[in-house]
């Protein structure tokens, strides 16, 4: 369950899960396979790299039973992801979409020259 104090906004959603952003705690929540996990910004991108690095071809070719699943245990989370090939592909799709939206948000912010309310913004005077 996502923290009730969290102020979260949807980043990206698929049929298999969703990624939310909590702007109060500056973290991302991953809702996937019946569980939710909070990630710090850098941890989230590291987790994506780990999921992207899973060798799907090797999982398919290897006929041993242990090759049907891969285990990813991200640091600083209580969760252990046990993923079959379908789950890896679904998670990849979700994380890739989320990453795109996060980067798009950065670009949009940059284009709009949005500054946070609390940041210093020089006053302009009209003569």
């Amino acid at each position, binding site marked *: 369950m996502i923290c009730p104090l969290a102020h979260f906004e949807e*980043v990206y959603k698929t049929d298999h899960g969703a990624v939310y952003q909590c702007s109060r705690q500056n973290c991302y929540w991953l809702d996937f396979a019946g569980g939710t996990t909070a990630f710090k910004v850098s941890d989230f991108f590291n987790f994506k790299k780990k999921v992207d690095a899973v060798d799907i071809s090797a999982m398919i070719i290897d006929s041993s039973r242990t090759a049907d699943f891969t285990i990813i245990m991200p640091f600083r989370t209580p969760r252990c992801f046990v993923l079959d090939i379908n789950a890896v592909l679904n998670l990849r799709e979700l994380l890739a979409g989320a990453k795109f939206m996060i980067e798009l948000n950065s670009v949009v*912010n940059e284009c709009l020259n949005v500054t946070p309310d609390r940041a210093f913004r020089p006053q302009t005077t009209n003569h």
Partner: protein
Amino acid sequence: MKDLLRLKTSLNEEIEKILNEQIKVEAHSSSIYLAMSSWCDDQGYDFSADFFAKQSEEERTHMLKLFNYVNDRGGRAISPEIVNIPADFESFRGVFEQMLEQEMYVTQQFNNIADKCMKVKDFVTFQFIQWFLEEQIEEEYVARRILEMFDVIGEEGTGRWEIDKHIPKVSYEG
């Protein structure tokens, strides 16, 4: 929506990746020069052994400069894994030829970083690597000058001893 990504890091993902690759290149250079120092020492080229030991230290300093920059800008610098460092070299001249090749490769890598910085408009990193680009002029000059000594002095007789003695005197005045 609040921009968490930029709050965490000012480095573009591609720039962070290419800088981490360069950290590895610098660490690799440092290890190769240390191996060359050891080989020169073993062969009795004392001055060259000192020269390469200093070069190795310098490359490590370069690596740390890049390393700290990545971390300071909010990125994650990765401590590189260094493998395939040779323990033996073909000849005294060959060692310096390899040094020049290594420096030319490093220059090429920094040119690629500069190109990437321009493409993504990261002028802060572009400014940062100017120091390295200038440094490369000296590195290549020194390696070329030393190689030229092999032709000027010649390797016959006490030639290699003479060359070794002159190695510390090669410097770039800029």
